[in-house]
């Protein structure tokens, strides 16, 4: 069933449709929340608040963007709101073992070791927020630069520049 159909059913209070929408998009929301908060516990809280907010305003979803982009944007706003409320940014505790535990490698590709993935994630977290988010959304969520711009709050061109600057910086850090 498509997102549009699920949204239509969820608006009528169909619990099964709501459940499916949550399960379909929770990983993307969590990755964005984690990218911004760099704290797994805070990210989980942010995701929960974001979904509650999204479902509370599901009637307002017009379908201009994909549902995933819409949820990701709400999640990003929630994460930023968390920082505004707390007025502090917790430094990343790079618990690589936890973060790569759920890696789902593609067997068709060259085997990426856990240590490589952990190191890349650690270096990714060192990038400025917009670069970090642009790289995350482009590679992990497959979003277009236009979609990334709508989430980050920038133009499509700025999203593109942020992505390529981020990648270039990451390559330097990984050398």
């Amino acid at each position, binding site marked *: 069933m498509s997102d549009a159909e699920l949204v239509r059913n969820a608006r009528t209070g169909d619990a099964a449709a709501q*459940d499916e929408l*949550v399960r379909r998009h929770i990983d993307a929301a969590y990755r964005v929340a*984690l990218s911004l908060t760099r704290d*797994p516990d805070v990210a*989980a809280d942010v995701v929960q608040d974001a979904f509650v907010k999204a479902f509370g305003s599901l009637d307002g979803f017009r379908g201009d963007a994909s549902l995933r982009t819409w949820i990701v944007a709400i999640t990003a706003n929630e994460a930023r709101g968390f920082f505004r409320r707390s007025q502090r940014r917790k430094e990343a505790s790079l618990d690589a073992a936890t973060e790569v535990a759920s890696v789902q490698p593609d067997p068709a590709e060259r085997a990426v070791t856990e240590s490589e993935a952990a190191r890349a994630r650690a270096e990714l977290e060192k990038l400025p927020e917009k670069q970090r988010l642009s790289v995350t959304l482009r590679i992990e969520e497959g979003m277009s630069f236009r979609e990334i711009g709508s989430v980050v709050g920038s133009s499509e061109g700025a999203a593109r520049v942020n992505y390529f600057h981020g*990648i270039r910086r990451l390559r330097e850090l990984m050398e």
Partner: protein
Amino acid sequence: MTQIRCAEVRQMMPDRVTGRVPADGSRDFEDHVARCADCAEELDLVRILFSGRVTAPAGLADRVVVAVRPRSSRATRPWWGLSAAAVAALAVGIGVASEPGPLGVAAGLGLASEFEEGELWLSDDGLLAGVPEFEALSDEALVELLEDLTSEIGGGSGGAA
């Protein structure tokens, strides 16, 4: 043969790595990466980042599913799905409790000395049952319960004529 530039190849990398763009018909891409060490290195990084992406922790989806559910559907439960505390309070009030003794859920709540197993109905899932918790009832259920009680009280009368 069409030659594509590094900028085009780099744009395509995320979609290629994630499989969002089918591999067939991308000979130019493959040829370019095979010849260009710079692009090959970047492709490797994109691949590593994609492979290392995290997923939501186990249990978060369940937590969110409960959180997004409308309050009405979370609060409403069958009238026989009672809280032990409600049963305890009502049971004391109606004199169900008698002799001390151990009792599943009630024992866990420190109620062991107040109830005896044989005096209460225990459902298979360990929930105590048998006395309604009125606050959790919908209007329809309350009406239904009231009708049941009324008919029981007036049981011998044969109902309204």
